[in-house]
Structure formats: C-alpha cells, structure tokens
C-alpha cells in the first residue's frame, strides 16, 4: 500500500509531505457529469482523504460517451449519478472516504455542504448553479475552481474568495443563450483537458502551493490556447465577494420552483420544501395509468401523457418532453403532488 502514491510523491512539488496533506483534505465536487466524473476520478486516485460529490441528475445513454465513471448498466437502470459515482470511486480507492449525494446544490443546503470543506470543484453544466456556488464559496470563504467545456473548447479559473476575482467580478450578469453540450455538442478530450486544469489547481492548493490567477481557455481540436491574468478584474464593489456583498444568488425562494434545463426539453419542478416522498407508494398510485413505473434506490421514473417523469426522494421532479414551465407545474400537481 505504501507503493500506491509513490510516483506522485516522487513529483517534487508534492513529495511525501504533500501526499500526507492530501490524505487530510476534504473536496466537494458539485456535479457528477463529465467534468465532475473526470475530476472525481483523478482526485480519488490521487488520494484525497475525503470526497463528497453531489448531483441532481441520473445516468442516460447520451452520457456514456464522456462521463467516465458510468457504465451501460447504470444507464439502463437510470441510476442516480451521485450514487453510481460513489460506488465507482470507492472501487477505485477503498482507502478514502467518498459520499455521493443525490440532490441539487442550492441555497438551502450550501452552508451544510461547505462545512469542513477545503475546496470546491465545479462539475456543473450551467451558470445558474455556478453563481450559487460562487456566492456560497464567497460567503463561507471556500476556494473553488470553475471549469466549463462545450464542443472542443474548455475554460478554467481558480477563485480564492477575498483575494482573487470571483465569477461575479468577471461576469456581471447570467449569460443568456449560451451553447450547451446538448445543443452544440461536446467531445471527451475537451472534458479531459478542462478537468486536468481543475484537478492540477486543486492539488496545488491542497499541498500548500498558490493557485494561478490566470483565466485559461483552449480549443483542443483547433489547437488554440489562451491565458489571461485576471487578478486586476477584482471588483471592489462586487455583489458577491466585496466587503458589502449581498450574495444575490443565495436568496431562498418560496413556494414551488421551476428550472428549464436548457437544450434538454426538460423542466425541473421542486416542491416549496423538501419532503420525503414515498416512491413505492407513488409508483403504486400511478401504476394503473402510467407506462413503466420503475423505482430504484433514489428515484422513480414513469411515462404519462407522452412525457417522461423522474421523481427523486425529496420531491424534486424532472419532466422530459416539456419546455413550458406552466405546463410542467400542472403535470407536477396532477401526478406527483396529488
């Protein structure tokens, strides 16, 4: 077992001391899609003492081309990404602590999730969640590493709250009409390079080195690379990271909330407060009307009115085949909440 990290210890900037530090650290990975999977696997192999990975989604066939932790069996059974990731990471490294949480990262659970965390890795696929991460990280002074990729392009930035510019300093509004992996496509190499930058920065931070203040981007297909030092862009009046920060994305909404998952023809509906839904009972109730009602460890899926429903234990529901929020709410009331 002492052999396990010998090559990484041989790498001078880490050494035996750095390796011992890694074993004491806790990394939170938000999102277990392509970037989350790639980061998680590298960090688990590198011997990070504790990894928590949270994800709101389940595995589909279209994920397998690039989301490296998952198998055909996972897609066939619509397994929750967080649970499948946890199992795979434990199989990769049984000497570390791994916990997968099948929930959404949101203003309600952010504080609890960031407790005792040394650094957060962005494995999300949308800016809504990234701005929640950014506010939470700024509020609780947890460093985080932004990563994004689409097509053959990728980008990354390390953010040290209070010291380097945060996402809000660089982007003062939520980007609209942005290309997603669903609409513009994505190739595995773009994921791997982005995750490589993120994990490298993470290892640097955890072993006591300073992270880069450069925003790095590349096109792995067109062989373009660019790097800009953005340290001067720190905004002294930033709504998220300045002394008088308001943390606009941490404001808790009341009542039923919806989110359109862009490019996926899917709406997510969430109850006003989390409640434990008895999935077996719900399955029995809708079974007579619904096609293929199936329950696994964390979710229930069924077909109804030519829509595909996926209901998680906490009541959060994904409705595929609908883009209109009002229609999604109606369907939710009719079949899930009733």
């Amino acid at each position: 077992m002492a052999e396990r990290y010998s090559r990484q210890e041989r790498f001078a900037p880490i050494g035996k001391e750095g390796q011992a530090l890694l074993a004491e650290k806790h990394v939170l990975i938000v999102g277990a899609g392509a970037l989350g999977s790639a980061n998680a696997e590298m960090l688990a192999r590198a011997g990070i003492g504790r990894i928590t990975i949270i994800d709101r989604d389940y595995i589909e066939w279209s994920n397998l081309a690039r989301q490296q932790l998952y198998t055909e069996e996972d897609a066939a059974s619509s397994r929750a990404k967080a649970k499948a990731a946890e199992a795979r990471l434990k199989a990769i490294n049984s000497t570390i602590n791994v916990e997968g949480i099948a929930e959404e990262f949101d203003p309600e659970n952010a504080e609890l999730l960031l407790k005792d965390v040394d650094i957060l890795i962005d494995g999300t696929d949308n800016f809504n969640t990234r701005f929640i991460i950014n506010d939470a990280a700024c509020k609780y002074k947890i460093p985080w590493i932004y990563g994004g990729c689409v097509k053959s392009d990728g980008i990354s930035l390390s953010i040290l709250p209070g010291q380097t510019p945060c996402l809000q300093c660089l982007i003062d509004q939520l980007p609209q009409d942005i290309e997603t992996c669903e609409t513009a496509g994505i190739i595995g190499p773009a994921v791997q390079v982005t995750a490589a930058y993120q994990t490298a920065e993470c290892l640097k931070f955890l072993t006591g080195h300073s992270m880069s203040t450069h925003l790095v981007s590349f096109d792995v297909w067109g062989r373009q690379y660019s790097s800009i030092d953005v340290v001067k862009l720190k905004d002294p009046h930033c709504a998220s990271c300045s002394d008088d920060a308001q943390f606009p994305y941490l404001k808790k909404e009341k009542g039923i909330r919806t989110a359109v998952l862009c490019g996926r023809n899917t709406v997510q509906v969430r109850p006003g407060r989390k409640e434990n839904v008895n999935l077996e009972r719900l399955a029995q109730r809708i079974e007579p009307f619904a096609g293929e009602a199936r329950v696994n460890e964390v979710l229930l899926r069924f077909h109804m009115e030519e829509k595909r429903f996926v209901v998680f234990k906490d009541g959060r529901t994904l409705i595929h085949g609908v883009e209109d929020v009002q229609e999604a709410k109606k369907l939710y009331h009719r079949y899930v909440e009733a």
Partner: protein
Amino acid sequence: MNIQLNGRSIDLPDNVTTVLELLDSYDIKKKISVVEHNKEIIRRFDYEKAKLADGDKIEIVHFVGGG
C-alpha cells in the same frame, strides 16, 4: 493589418479596426469574454474605442457553460 490573436498570426480584413469589430468578425460579440490588448485587459464598454494596430497582441477568452 496583421495581429497576434491567441498566439497566432492573423491577417485582418480592412473593415476590422477595433476590438469590437474583431469580436464581431469571429461571431462572439454577444458572448461574455475577457479581452487582453497588448497585455492590458479591455473593459466591455471600451471594446468599441479600442483601436487595433499592426503587430498588436490580442488574447480573447470567452466563457463556456457546459460540463
């Protein structure tokens, strides 16, 4: 005129004379970007004023959201 764009030598058409026109010519005017012009970061509202000259070094990074 010839500039260095993200480390590559590029010949610009005559109608591209500012950073804004440069972004437009690559169809990324609407995307949120960080632009560095001869090692100085240019603010978004200054893109139109930033005149390009032969031999300028430009770095453009635009944000992407997938993952």
